[in-house]
C-alpha cells in the first residue's frame, strides 16, 4: 500500500473540496473494497477523504419514496422497516451480499462504487484494461466463469459485483451527486457504464463527484418485490446470477407492470428492460416469464466457462417471476 494523506470531511462540500486538492484522491466509506484494493496495489490513491461523517439518515417520505443518505451502512438500510416493507428486494439484496461484519462497515455510496471481482483485475501480473488501459484482457481466454454474458466488449468481460445495485436498478433508484460544479441527480441505471473500449471508466461520475444520497421513488407494488441470488456456496459468495424483481398482476391475470434487473451478468447492474416490455400486458404465466427471459437474453454471449449463466439467468428470472405471481416469497 502506498502512503496517502487522510482527511475527514464534515459535509459534502468539504469532501469535494478536500478531494479536489489532491491528484488521485479517493473517497473512503467503510473501506471494505477500497482498502483491499489498495493492499493489492490496484488502487493507489494519494489522499483519502473519509466521508463516513456525511448524512446517513434514511428518510421514509409520506409519498412512499425513501431517501437514503450515502453514508448509511448496508446493515442500517436492510434493517430499516420502511425499506423492508416498501422495497423488500433492496433489503434482501443487501442481506444477500457479503457478511454481517462487512455490511456493518460498508456504506451505500461505497457499495455502489465497488469494483469487479475479476481475478485478472486483482492480479498485477495479469493484463487488464481496467488497471492498465490498452494492456489487453487476460480474462477473455482465461478463467471467466464469473464473467459477463451481456454488454461485454473485446476489451473487458468483467461484471459489477454489487447485489444492492441490482435492486436499486430494478427499483428506478436515483443517485444524488455533488461535485465541483454543484449537485445533480442521475438514474442509477445510467451511473455505471458498459465497458466498450474504455473499461477503466466505470461510471459517469465526474472527477471528485460524490454520491450523497440514493432515492427510491414510490412504487406500491414493490412491497411484494424480491431478490434471488445464485452462487457457489450457500452464503458469503458473490453472485453468479442474481435477479431483483417486482411484479404487478391485475385482477385479470395480466401483467400490469414489472421491474426486473439482473446481477452477475454484466459490467453494470442490468436492468432487464426488454423483458419488462415483453411482459407488460401479457398473462402472468410461466410461459410469458420464460419468453420474456429469452427476449432479454437473446443477445447474451458466453465465454469458455460462463455460457451456463445464460441458461441460469433465464431459469432464475422465470422462477423468480413465477414465485411473485404465485404470491410466495422465494
Amino acid at each position, binding site marked *: 500500500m502506498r502512503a496517502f494523506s487522510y482527511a475527514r470531511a464534515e459535509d459534502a462540500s468539504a469532501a469535494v473540496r478536500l478531494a479536489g486538492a489532491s491528484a488521485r484522491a479517493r473517497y473512503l466509506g467503510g473501506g471494505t473494497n477500497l482498502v483491499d484494493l489498495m493492499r493489492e496495489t490496484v488502487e493507489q490513491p494519494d489522499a483519502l477523504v473519509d466521508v463516513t461523517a456525511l448524512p446517513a439518515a434514511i428518510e421514509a417520505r409520506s409519498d412512499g419514496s425513501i431517501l437514503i443518505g450515502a453514508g448509511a451502512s448496508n446493515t442500517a438500510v436492510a434493517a430499516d422497516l420502511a425499506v423492508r416493507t416498501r422495497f423488500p428486494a433492496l433489503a434482501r439484496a443487501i442481506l444477500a451480499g457479503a457478511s454481517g461484519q462487512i455490511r456493518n462497515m460498508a456504506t451505500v455510496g461505497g457499495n455502489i462504487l465497488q469494483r469487479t471481482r475479476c481475478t485478472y483485475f486483482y492480479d498485477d*501480473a495479469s493484463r487488464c484494461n481496467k488497471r492498465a488501459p490498452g494492456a489487453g484482457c487476460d480474462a477473455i481466454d482465461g478463467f471467466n466463469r464469473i464473467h459477463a454474458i451481456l454488454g461485454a466488449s473485446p476489451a473487458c468481460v468483467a461484471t459489477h459485483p454489487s447485489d444492492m445495485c441490482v435492486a436499486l436498478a430494478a427499483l428506478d433508484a436515483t443517485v444524488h451527486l455533488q461535485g465541483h460544479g454543484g449537485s445533480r441527480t442521475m438514474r442509477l441505471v445510467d451511473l455505471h457504464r458498459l465497458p466498450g473500449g474504455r473499461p477503466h471508466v466505470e461510471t459517469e461520475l465526474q472527477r471528485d463527484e460524490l454520491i450523497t444520497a440514493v432515492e427510491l421513488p414510490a412504487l406500491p407494488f414493490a412491497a411484494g418485490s424480491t431478490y434471488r441470488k445464485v452462487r457457489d456456496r450457500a452464503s458469503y459468495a458473490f453472485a453468479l446470477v442474481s435477479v431483483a424483481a417486482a411484479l404487478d398482476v391485475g385482477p385479470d391475470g395480466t401483467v400490469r407492470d414489472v421491474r426486473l434487473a439482473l446481477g452477475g451478468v454484466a459490467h453494470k447492474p442490468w436492468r432487464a428492460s426488454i423483458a419488462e416490455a415483453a411482459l407488460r400486458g401479457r398473462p402472468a404465466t410461466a410461459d410469458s416469464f420464460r419468453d420474456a427471459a429469452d427476449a432479454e437474453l437473446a443477445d447474451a454471449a458466453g465465454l469458455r466457462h460462463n455460457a451456463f449463466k445464460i441458461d441460469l439467468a433465464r431459469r432464475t428470472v422465470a422462477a423468480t417471476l413465477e414465485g411473485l405471481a404465485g404470491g410466495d416469497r422465494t
Partner: protein
Amino acid sequence: MSIVDTVKQAVTGAVTGAMVRLTPDAPVDPLATKHGALGRSVPRVDGPLKVGGQARFAAEVPVEGLTYAALVYSTIAHGRIVTLDTAEAVAAPGVVLVMTHENAPRMAPPAIFMSNPRAAGASDLPIMQDPSIHWNGEPVALVLADTQEQADHAASLVRVSYEAAQADLSFDQARAQAHAPDSVLGEPARIAIGDAEAALAAAPYRVDLSYRTPRHSHGAIEPHAATVLWEGDKLVVHDATQMLHATQWTLAGIFGIREEDIRILSPFVGGGFGGKGLWSHQILAIAAAKLSKRPVRIALSREGVFRVAGGRTTTGQRVALGANADGTLAALIHTGVAAMTAHNNCPEQFTFPARHLYAAGSFLLEQKVADIHMLANTFMRAPGESVGTFALETALDELAEAMALDPIELRRRIEPDKDPTSGRAFSSRHLLEAYAKGAERFGWSQRPAPRSRREGEWLVGMGVATATYPYYRMPGGSARIRLTAEGAVVQMGSHEMGMGTATAQAQHAADRLGLPLERVRFEYGDTDLPPGTIAGGSSQTVSIAAALLAAHEVLVAQLLKLAGNDSPLGGLKAAEVEARDGGLHHKEDTGRGESYASILARAGRAEVVAQAEAPRPMEVMKHSMHSYGAQFCEVRVSAVTGEVRVSRFLGSFDCGRILNPQTARSQFRGGIIMGLGLALMEETEFDERTGRIMNPSLAEYHVPVHLDVPEIDVIWTDIPDPHSPLGAHGIGEIGITGVGAAVANAIHNATGRRVRELPITLDKLL
C-alpha cells in the same frame, strides 16, 4: 513425510520380510479395553487459552527489535531473472534489507521428503540461489522493514524482468508424457493381478469411467508464519509446523549448522491439514535474519500462502469395474495420472483405496505422474484417498445401479476376507458393521428411486460411499515421563494443530500411570523435548502412544528398583504390577502396592525421569491395517438453478478405539466438512497459459461456510484394534474420504445426473 517408506526403512533396517512374519505380535495393550480417562469426552486442555485469545501462534511472539518481511513473487513459470532493480525498494522508508539471489547467503537445497526419515523439504529446488525460475509465484526477493506496512510497500517497488523459457503447464498435454514415479510412498506404482482388462471385457456387467479432480488448497485460517531469531550461532524459529524435528534436521543441512544449535517451537498451529511443512518462507526468513542481524517475522499474506505453500494436485483417473452376475468383481481397474513437479515427491496416492478395500478376481492399479512447472504439490488431508475414493466409490455406485443392486449390498458381496492385493490378514476390519449401523440410523431404506423425490423446486436424494485411510505409525519418536509426588509430565516434541493431541495424550498418560487427569500434563511443540514424529498420515496419536508406552515400561522398572525390598512391591517383577490409584500395585493382590509419593519419599527423590523410543512399527508389516467408514449423505438440488444443499450427513466409522469422543467427533466432522468443500466448491484455479494461481484468496477459493454445513451425525464401532497401541487408529484424515462420492451419489439419486469432475458446481447440473 515418507509415510510407508519411513516405516519400511526402519523396519527392514532391522529385519527382513520373512523375519517380520515370524516375529510375534506385541501383546494387546491393556488400555485398549480399559475405561478410565480414555474413552471419556474430556474438554480440550488448551480451551481456556484459545477462547481467551491467549494462545500464542508463530506470528505472535513479541520480540524486541523485530523486522517484518514481505515477499516478491515471480510472474513467470519457467525461465530466468534478467534484471532486478531494487534501488527504489532499498530507499523506501523503514527498509532494512532487500534480499535477492544476488545477496542471499549460500544455502544447500532442502533435503526432500523421503530422502531421509527426517527430511522435511517440500521440494529439493535451491531457494533464491540463482536467477532461475521454476514456478509462477516463486519468491524472487524478500524485503525486510521496521513495519509490515513499510515492507509490503517496498516489496511493490522491486522491479524484475524475466526471460521466459518453455513451460509445461497443460495437464492434458503433460499427461501424454506421464511417467511412473519411483514409488508411490514406498509402494509400487503399478500392481497387476491377473489380466484385468481381459476380465473386464468378458464381464457381464461393467462400467468404465473417467474422473477429474482439481487442485485444492489447505486453507488453514492461520497463514504460514515464522518468527526467527539468531542468538549468536544459535537459531530459534517460532514456526507453524506439523514437523518440528524434521524441520530442525532439514534446516541444519540447509544452513550447514549443527542440529543442536537449532530450536523450533510450535506450541499452537492454526490449522495444518498437511500444508504446514517446510516451505521457502521459513528458509528465506532465516537467511534474511542472518544477513540483517535482526530478528525477522514472516507472516505470509493469503496470496503468499497460495504462491509459496503447495496444495493438493490435480488428477485424471479411470475406474473400470467388471462384475459377475452374482455381484462379485471380476476386474477392478483404477489407473490415472497426477500432476507433479520434477522436484518433489508427492504423487497423490489415489489408487491406494482400491488396493485394500474390495475383493476382485483381477486388479490393475497403476498411477503415473505428469511433470508440470508449478509450485510443488504436497500432502493435503487424506492425500490420494480423498480424491481416489471419489472415483472408486462413484464408479461402484454406477455399477450397483447397472446391476439393480443396493450399493451397500454390492459392498457386502465384494467384502474381502484378507487384504486383496497384499494377502495379509486385516488387523481390524468392521466396515460392514459400520455400514449396517449407519444405514439404520440414517434411514437408508428410505432412499428414493433416482429423481423421484421432489419438494417444491428441490430434488432430494441420498448417497453412500466407503471411507478408508491407512493406519500408519511413524518410527523414531521418544517420550519422556517426569514423575513427581504431585503428578506427571509427559514430554515429546509433538504437534497440536487442533486434533486434541495434548488432551488425548494427557488422558492416555493418566490411565497409563494410574493418576487422575488433573495431575498429568502433556508437553509438546518444542525441539528441546524428546523427538516427536510428524503430525501427518493420521499417525501421531499412535506414534506418541507407542513412545509413551515404552517410556512407561522404563519408568516402572526404575520405580520397582527405587522401591526396593522394603516396599510392599518388593520382589515383584514389572509384569506382575500395574499402575493405578497413584502408584504401582500387584495385578491380582489388590492390597499390595505403594504410591508414587511414598516410593519417591523413601528414596529421597523429588522425581523419576524415564525416556524411551517407541519400538519399530512391526504391526504394519504383519497386518493390513486400515480405518474404515460409511459416509451417508442427503442432498437437495434446485431443479431451477442446480444449487446443491447438503441437508443431512452421517459418518459411521470403524477406527479402532475412540479415545475422546468429543474431540474425535469434531475431527471426523471437520474431515467431512472439508469433504463437502471438495465435493461442491473447492478448486485452486491454475491458469495453464501462465502457470499462475488466479484465485489466491478466501473470497474466491470457496470453502464451506456455516450455512453450507448441516448438523453432522457421527457414530463409530469403537472396536479396538488388537495390534495398535491403545487399540486406536488416527482419525484426522478418514473423515474427508468417501465424502465426495457420497455427495455425488446423492446428487445422482436426486437428479439422475452423474458428475465425474470435481467440484460439482451448479453449472454441471443445469
